[in-house]
């Protein structure tokens, strides 16, 4: 065994390059290209700040992703708790010294870059919980001790993000965590009961929501309630998507965005703009790319030898799926408006960084699929 691994180490680099997930990489590049084109369109067909910045970030993070993919997956197992702790500290820091923008304190100033720790938490929570369950025996998973610990791991960052306030991201973090619990083999009944409890306590939760959040829920239920106020975003978004038709209005010809009817078109509503300009076929194509990416992630999980890599890949793939679905459902009027970016497509460095790190770890898992973690 030892000899074998020694032999393996000799043609290490060559082996690694051969094992590199080129399909996933190509899909990510394609997605990046689409996102740049869309960003170019949100800037009104000019090379302005958003496009340039997005381009720069994409290039840097792609290199970062390649770098990560060649690091051994064991390394990520090792820093699983540490990374979680660092980001929790950053979240605490954010609460005290964060930068406030549009009513919430989400960013911390790292002098050369503003970073949003809550976005990084999306990936760190998966790493942390994956590590936590890696060693657990299946019968111990459902033990009181491990359930409580894992819930604390989930609730700590969630509550830190919720007080920023940023309901959307905290929900996404907790969903990522719950997904890991699911894959770790937590009993079905827990999910069933907690779902039941959530539904029953929904009225109470709503009463704890801030007025603007309540308004969003009401608006979701009936967007025509206040078409120029709270319902404006979702109505305009639906108009943009709906008016796209089969083939779309054409690149740089999306009137809804070009004439500034679309809100938040760089970030949460970027899919709306894409959908308006490229229509049903374009949207389905984009979904297809996302599907391939998620498929590749899950496939990496399937071929991975280590439980850690498996649980990470499955959870990360599922989380990606949830992010995409929540974002799209939101802009298509299937869910209330919660701030959730579309991975890679939306403008935002931290979100892209987290996603790219995730991709990097998945690629690393692919390259080191034979690697077992003790």
């Amino acid at each position, binding site marked *: 065994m030892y000899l074998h691994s020694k032999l393996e180490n000799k043609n290490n680099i060559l082996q690694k390059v051969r094992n590199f997930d080129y399909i996933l990489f190509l899909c990510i590049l394609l997605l990046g290209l689409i996102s740049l084109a869309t960003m170019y369109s949100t800037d009104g067909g000019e090379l302005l700040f958003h496009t340039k910045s997005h381009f720069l970030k994409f290039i840097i993070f792609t290199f970062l992703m390649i770098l990560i993919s060649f690091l051994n997956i064991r390394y990520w197992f090792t820093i699983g708790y540490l990374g979680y702790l660092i980001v929790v500290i950053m979240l605490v820091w954010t609460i005290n010294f964060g930068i406030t923008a549009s009513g919430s304190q989400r960013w911390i100033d790292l002098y050369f870059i503003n970073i949003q720790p809550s976005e990084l938490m999306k990936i760190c929570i998966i790493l942390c919980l994956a590590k936590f369950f890696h060693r657990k025996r299946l019968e111990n998973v459902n033990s009181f001790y491990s359930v409580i610990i894992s819930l604390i791991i989930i609730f700590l960052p969630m509550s830190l993000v919720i007080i920023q306030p940023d309901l959307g991201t905290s929900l996404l973090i907790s969903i990522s965590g719950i997904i890991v619990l699911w894959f770790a083999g937590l009993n079905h009944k827990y999910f069933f009961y907690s779902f039941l409890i959530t539904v029953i306590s929904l009225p109470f939760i709503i009463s704890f929501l801030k007025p603007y959040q309540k308004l969003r829920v009401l608006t979701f239920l009936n967007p025509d309630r206040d078409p120029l106020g709270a319902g404006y975003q979702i109505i305009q978004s*639906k108009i943009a*998507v709906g008016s796209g038709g089969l083939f779309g209005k054409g690149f740089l010809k999306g009137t809804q965005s070009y004439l500034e009817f679309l809100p938040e078109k760089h970030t949460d509503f970027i899919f709306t703009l894409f*959908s308006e300009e490229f229509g049903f076929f374009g949207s389905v194509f984009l*979904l297809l790319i996302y599907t391939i990416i998620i498929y590749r992630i899950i496939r990496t999980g399937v071929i991975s030898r280590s439980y850690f890599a*498996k649980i990470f890949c499955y959870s990360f793939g599922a989380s990606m*799926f949830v992010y995409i679905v929540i974002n799209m459902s939101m802009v298509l009027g299937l869910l209330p408006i919660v701030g959730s970016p579309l991975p890679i497509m939306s403008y935002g460095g931290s979100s892209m960084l987290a996603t790219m790190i995730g991709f990097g770890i998945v690629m690393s898992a692919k390259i080191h699929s034979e690697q077992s973690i003790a």
Partner: protein
Amino acid sequence: MIDQSDNVIKLSSINRRMFILATAKIIILGCIVSRLFFLQVRENKKYLTLSDKNRIREWKLPPVRGDFKDYFGNVIAGNFEAYQLHLIPEQVDDFRYTMNRIKNILELSDKQFQKLLKKKNKIKPWETLIVADNLSWKNFSKINNNLYDLNGVKPIISISRNYPYKENFTHILGYVSQANENDILSSEIIKEKFVQGLKVGKIGLEKTFEEDLIGSNSIERYEVNAYGRRISQLAFQQGDQGKTVKLTVDTEVQKLTNELLVDKAGSICAMDIFTGHVIAMHSSPSFDPNAFVFGISQDDWQLIRNNPMKPLVNKSISGNYSPGSTIKPIVALSALENEIVSTNFTVHCKGHDHPFELYGQTYHCWKKEGHGYMNMREAMKQSCDTYFYEVARRLGVDKLSETAKKFGLGEKVFGKLFNNEKNGLIPSTYWKKNALGRNWLLGETIITGIGQGYIQTTPIQLCLMTAQIANGGHKIYPELILRDKEDIKKDKFSSLVKNSKNIRFIQDAMFSSTNEIRGTSFKSRIDDPKYQFAGKTGTAQVKRITEKDRELDLKTVEIPYEERDHALYVAFGPYQNPRYAISILIEHGGSGGTVAAPLAKKLFKKIIDRHELRKNFQNKKYLDI
């Protein structure tokens, strides 16, 4: 090995769960795709419309108003190009500087300047600020010369209402002015076509024919962004000018009536006795309707409003006056028709010493010395009141009112054409019981016989009455609007009298009044048979004449203006072959014979001179077709 087996269980668990979740993912993905399909394919049309509604906005431009033309096709209310100065604050680099430059060039007062600044603050920076809406050519060219210095300032030529004959047609046409809230609320059409700066008719025919005249808006279609800023023009749709309304009026005659009534308060109406065409209808004093187009200044408005001669009242149709002696032809006719008296019936008028007496009440003739023995023709000619007191007493008010109503008194001449036309009032016993709740007194019949008391008529009614006497007692419908296809009413030209001898007698009596010595308007006669006309004077008392007044016997000029008699005159001509009827009223003018009748002389000359032209024009029109 335990670890190993545990690992196997763990792996099978995670893989099983992965498949469960993967199935769920596929289902959810299906939902998203079907939602996309629903929005983008099924509901595409709906959202495309909504998107266009978002981005396309239409700007209506004021429609071009239709013209008014007189009988001969002259434009009496048209459009002219108004020079305006527009400014878009956003496009101006230095607003203060530019405004000050404009202020200096146009020599604006500080008050106007402040008003403009206030107006600017009310609008969005990309909306148009109208700096001036009707610039003189001089100022307009000055602005154009300085354009290099005035960024964002736009000299605009806009189309606006113009009344070339100024005060001549004011009371017929009315005027247009900025549409206000009431106009918009009261008319669907105005509401539909409303744009900032739209002028609508406020009164007169401009108001009546609003729907025909208004025309349709030109439409500019722009692509706008979410904040309403225009991005690009997509289309321009040219609107249609409003319809032209042709009038029966002859501008030359109308102008003459204006000249005749200058500095007087009163009205002149002239009518074709067969077609019913009103060829002139003027109320004096008048005012220039052009002043209202861009909004009249407060000072000018007060000047018009507070003028004691009441320029705002259209006296021809909304002035109720006692007809005075001009009612006598109707009284005489009624008496003859009802066979109360014959033409030979004689009354002795003994003057003020022995006035007509009834139940202790005395009724005086206007002539102090009395007229002596009067038959009907003489009484008409010299307008003997005593004679008509007696005739009226025998006739009774109900029979009189019946005849008067037949001849068009007591009801609106133009029907619904004007909303300010008055009915006048022809009293009867029934009316008094109904309206005042008291019984009719015989004394009231007596004074009704000379056109005093309750009886009230408008000048246009008197004109119609005279026209119907002149045409031999046939019913006509006065027309002010020249229609391409005249709708002939069933009872047009139906006879209003039982015996045509009677009407011929009345015509002859009116002839004598103007053309025979001792006739009340003898001085105003024209001997040339081409122009010769027959008429009846009237002097309507405004207040009751007391014994003291009678003793004083003051001249007209010595009486306060408000208490002076109204002078009236009705006539038709040429006598040999009557064609036109006129009525003249001078408010507080004094006696009808001395003030009103002389105007008829000039008027008939003009009207009859132009008759040939009018006839030929009409024939030519038919030839053209």
